């Protein structure tokens, strides 16, 4: 779970004390507290079935949040992921239901269609905001509207359905009780973690979030890296669309409303700074799990909808306060 601290040392070897663990565990402590709480106070929380449920339910948010991590690390934000996901799902839904393709081809076509749609939207976000140095908040808010309008236009506001069986099977497949779609998300997390920590590309992304001007003065093209970050985020929105389709067997043009806030929340609860340059995708994973565990556990505990919403807010606030003290103790 170490992420930022370097493994090869110039000098001293890291000690595996409580402090180092705390320091690197991110928001893990709050997560642990939640898990213990729900295990004690509900009957079904720690059952294999429920864990499978939780993993399935966090998958889409996790996939979106992985891409969002890249954008936030370079100091940007992407409000369009929910809409782009819907748009990608609609385009892929149109593709997969085209007549005259075998199931395998249709699925391949859909995957390509969804990711390409996501990538194109991401490139648009990145190019416009980076080239003119415009606030990505506004550009991606524009894209939020564009992609949603496009999704509705393309689908004529109709739910698209009846996908090949193989596709549905992928959506509900399990390996030892772990949903395959979650494994896909986990693979994305791993790849992102690897890219961010072990490639030059990743380190420069961090650098841009820290001090864009310094990276420019060091002779790098900030523009390209930023576009790349938004493109990755668009790509993961495309993947999320695939997961959505496989899981629900429909493409709905109104899917994903508000998903951007959840994805951003996962990233920030995971300790990534909204101003860029600091954070990790492992934190994002933990953040997404926290949100998922909370949503699941509060229903199991039998809270009414309204109380649940309130308590969700309170727990999120407490989690970050708790994390503040964890980080402080770890830094001592």
């Amino acid at each position, binding site marked *: 779970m170490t992420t930022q601290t370097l493994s090869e040392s110039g000098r001293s070897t890291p000690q595996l004390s409580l402090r180092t663990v705390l320091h690197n565990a991110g928001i893990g402590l709050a997560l642990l507290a939640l898990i213990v709480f729900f295990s004690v106070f509900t009957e*079904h929380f720690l059952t294999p079935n429920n864990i499978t449920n939780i993993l399935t339910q966090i998958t889409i948010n996790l996939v979106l949040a992985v891409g969002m991590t890249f954008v936030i690390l370079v100091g940007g934000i992407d409000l369009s992921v929910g809409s782009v996901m819907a748009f990608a799902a609609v385009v892929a839904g149109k593709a997969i239901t085209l007549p005259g393709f075998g199931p395998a081809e249709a699925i391949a076509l859909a995957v390509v269609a969804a990711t390409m749609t996501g990538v194109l939207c991401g490139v648009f976000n990145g190019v416009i905001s980076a080239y003119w140095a415009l606030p990505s908040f506004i550009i991606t808010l524009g894209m939020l509207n564009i992609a949603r309008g496009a999704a509705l236009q393309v689908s004529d*506001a109709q*739910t698209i359905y009846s996908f090949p069986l193989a596709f549905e099977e992928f959506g509900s497949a399990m390996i030892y009780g772990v949903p395959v779609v979650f494994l896909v998300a986990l693979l994305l997390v791993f790849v992102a973690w690897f890219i961010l920590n072990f490639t030059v590309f990743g380190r420069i992304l961090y650098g841009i979030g820290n001090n864009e001007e310094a990276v420019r003065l060091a002779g790098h093209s900030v523009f390209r890296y930023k576009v790349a970050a938004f493109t990755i985020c668009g790509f993961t929105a495309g993947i999320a669309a695939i997961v959505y389709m496989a899981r629900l067997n429909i493409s709905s043009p*109104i899917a994903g409303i508000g998903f951007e806030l959840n994805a951003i929340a996962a990233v920030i609860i995971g300790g990534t700074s909204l101003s860029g340059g600091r954070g990790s995708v492992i934190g994002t994973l933990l953040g997404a799990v926290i949100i998922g565990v909370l949503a699941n556990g509060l229903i199991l505990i039998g809270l009414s909808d309204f109380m649940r919403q309130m308590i969700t807010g309170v727990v999120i606030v407490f989690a970050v306060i708790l994390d503040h003290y964890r980080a402080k103790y770890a830094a001592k």
Partner: protein
Amino acid sequence: DDKPVVGLIMKSLANEFFQNMMVGAQAHQEKRGDYELLAVGMQNETDFESQINAVENFITQGVDAIVVAPADSRAMVRPLKKAMDAGIVVVNFDVALDEDAKKQRGVELAFVGPDNRGGAKLAGDALGEKLGEGGKVVIIEGNPGADNATQRRLGFEDSVAEFKLDLLDSRTAHWETEEANSVFSNMLTAHPDIQGVMAANDSMAIGVVKALESAGRDDILVVGFDNIPAVGPMIEDGRMLATVDQFGTDMAANAIDLALEVVQGGPELEGWVKTPIELVTAN
């Protein structure tokens, strides 16, 4: 040309039910050809303001009739009163304006539309008949605070009372497939003994059906509402027990017809002009 102009105010057209309704209205306009149609939707279902804005904009444009599916049965009364005072014919369809609110302002306005509560009860009754007394059911509600969501929940609760069903839980999934899928999965974990599900629209019913499939349960009955095309196969193969059709495609068109009659000097509408609803089951 001096064809009468009809302003149609819809709810969110992103909802395929209303989109189809609007397509129906446009087809109707083309067919009749003797009036002009201006149609406006809302950005989202809770965006009451945009409907009020639409009424104001229509008054500005001087339309002859406003045909409106109110997003909130109370907020719309005053602006519609303003329209009526400006001499515009107003027809209320889909969701009825609140009686009290109308009385308070001295508004006399008929309602053209289906009975959401009655419709929901049709679906609930279908479930109740299958399960019998003591059947364990849950409700997946629409957006809390939305009038049609409230009506449908009340309709389901009527069935629960009539058939003495055991209501285990009742939660919102905000009309949304993915949320219904997650929320219902969690409800199923908490209450593995659920026998029936009443979903307040078909989008949520689809999410419920998928959750049952992933959980490997084929012993739980699901009813929905709206009869969108995507649930057709599910009803056919028994994954869903029933849904309710309000014939939305014709609803706006019918309301427009009624409005045009009044514009052309016909008598004012009165009371509740009920439009048909029908329970849809496998054959």
